[in-house]
């Protein structure tokens, strides 16, 4: 098992699938000749040529729609939307065309399209380049939403998303492309549905996804060493559909819940998880669930303000201590 960076894992998934199937193509801004803003498509242009590795004009709505139209005929496009903030411009096509086509055609036409996009607050990118928008995508019927927290997931989820006959949105994080981790040497498909237990524990469940899984893991370490609290970390790599059974199972074991998300709270991942807990296992709770989330502000540019707007592992620790009456 090799240690590789997350961008390399994504590149490898592209390369394997493109060499296997000539109808797998990729497109996006600067992904070809320039090699990709995050290097996720490095070397593919040279290997597969401009017909299959398409540098697009800066027309998110247009090229996303084009990819979806091609997928109706069995092409499997992997669309890179450089920043999730730009995905707003492509949502009409993702939601109205890709997500609905199968249903409204009575199962005649499918859109096996993959949309990859980088989101999250990175380093003073300001209000229009720092959004987290997974909550917008996860409420749309007909669209799958997955989000990797490590290179292995990034590789395996993309492999599965390409093979899936459904449109899949993959939410990546700007700060995680250089993260190193183990990826199996042999071909690996990560399930598109479900959740992973990233760390087993007994006293409290910390729900995270993407970058917040790492806050939760770090918090769990501190809680264990400094406070003797055993935290279970559940990695919700699938945001749509959410793993109802997995959520129920962990809550029924620990009876306490903290949900960590980088996004703002309203109508968000945390709200949805709490609703699922209410529906599935309300009487298992020993305390009201707590959400850790960013401030409800357009992301500020100033470094200190930016840091204040975004939560981290310390906020997760504080939330758990509060839950246990220790803060």
């Amino acid at each position, binding site marked *: 098992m090799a240690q590789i960076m997350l961008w390399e894992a994504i590149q490898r998934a592209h390369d394997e699938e493109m060499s296997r199937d000539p109808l797998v193509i990729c497109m996006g801004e600067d992904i070809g000749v320039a090699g990709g803003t995050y290097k996720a498509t490095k070397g593919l242009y040279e290997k597969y040529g401009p017909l299959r590795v398409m540098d697009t004009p800066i027309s998110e709505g247009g090229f996303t729609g084009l990819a979806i*139209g*091609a997928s109706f005929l069995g092409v499997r496009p992997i669309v890179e939307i450089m920043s999730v903030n730009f995905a707003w411009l492509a949502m009409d096509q993702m939601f109205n065309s890709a997500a609905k086509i199968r249903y409204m055609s009575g199962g005649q036409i499918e859109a096996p399209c993959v949309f990859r996009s980088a989101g999250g607050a990175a380093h003073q990118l300001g209000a229009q380049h720092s959004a987290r928008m997974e909550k917008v995508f996860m409420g749309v019927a007909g669209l799958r939403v997955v989000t990797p927290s490590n290179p292995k997931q990034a590789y395996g989820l993309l492999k599965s998303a390409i093979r899936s006959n459904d449109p899949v949105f993959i939410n990546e994080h700007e700060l995680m492309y250089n993260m190193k981790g183990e990826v199996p040497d042999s071909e690996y498909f990560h399930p598109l549905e479900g959740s992973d237990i990233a760390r087993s524990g007994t006293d409290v469940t910390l729900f995270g996804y993407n970058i917040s899984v790492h806050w939760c893991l770090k918090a769990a370490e501190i809680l264990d060493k400094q406070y003797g609290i055993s935290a279970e970390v559940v990695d919700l790599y699938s945001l749509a559909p959410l793993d109802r059974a997995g959520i129920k199972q962990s809550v029924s074991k620990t009876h306490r819940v903290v949900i960590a998300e980088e996004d703002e709270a309203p109508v968000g991942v945390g709200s949805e998880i709490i609703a699922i807990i209410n529906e599935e296992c309300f009487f298992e709770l020993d305390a009201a669930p707590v959400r850790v989330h960013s401030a409800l502000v357009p992301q500020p540019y100033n470094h200190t303000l930016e840091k204040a707007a975004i939560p981290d592992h310390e906020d997760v620790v504080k939330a758990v201590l509060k839950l246990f009456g220790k803060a």
Partner: protein
Amino acid sequence: MKIEDKKRVLREMVLHRRFEERCYQAYIERKIGGFLHLYPGQEACCNGVMEAARPGQDYVITGYRDHVHAIKCGADPKEVMAELYGKETGSSKGRGGSMHIFDAAHHFMGGYALVGGPFPLAAGIAKAIQLKGGDEIAICFLGDAANNQGVFHETLNMAALWKLPVLFVCENNLYGIGTSIERSTAVIHQHKRVAAYNIPSAECDGQDIDIVYQHARTAVDHVRAGNGPYFLELMTYRYRGHSMSDSRGYRSREEEEEWKQRDPIFMLRDRLITADALTLADFEAMEKEIDAYIENEVIKFAEESPEPRVEDLEKYVLADRESQQPWLTGKAA
């Protein structure tokens, strides 16, 4: 077009007209719900273009005024009517409705209800054809008002850049919902707008099927020969309102009458009578026969077909839920 083809097309156009008029009646009777956008007046557009193309092989995509395009591609009128009735036997199994007719087997890739939405989808279909190396083309029928959407320009740019085999047919019926083109659009003649993208284009009378066919021949041949996209603008008129909820208060009855003087069906009929290929009696008999077919077969089928089962409400949302692909249900390693 040969005289025999013209006679066949006249028959098809009468079917298209009577089908749409029967929809109007069924809507009044509340057999059809939702929105209903009818095609009478514009028949020469779809028929003229598709006669120059290969219906059932070339891929066709359009907006919400889509019944006739579907039928012209080969969809069974019975299934289209059943769809309007919301029945399980409908072309989209009752899940789509009037604005979402699909017939993938005949390469009719659908009706879409977001104005301008099909532009990039059409380019994508053309991209798929290009990748697979077939000699089909993509044909995108939309109205003039769709050209005021941003994706119109984004799509023209990409189609020209990548030489995609797509024919854009603009059925310019002079109104976008209830706003006339001169009140919404700085340029009335839409073909002028595509010149900026180096896409060859033409404008012609959309009421005279011979003229439409002639121009479509050039357009289709251009695209099929691998020369990239083409834009054909057809000047036409819809007799009915934008949809059934439209009382046409934004235009005069005189203007409507003026357009009806150049009715596409009657112009073709009269031309065939003048050429001694048809008599008025033949035409009237044909109309009766078509009305009987619509009543006794099309409407009957729609009326008698079953409703979808409520148990199947969530069927068709996700493909992989039905097929149980291993990468969905497997455990993370």
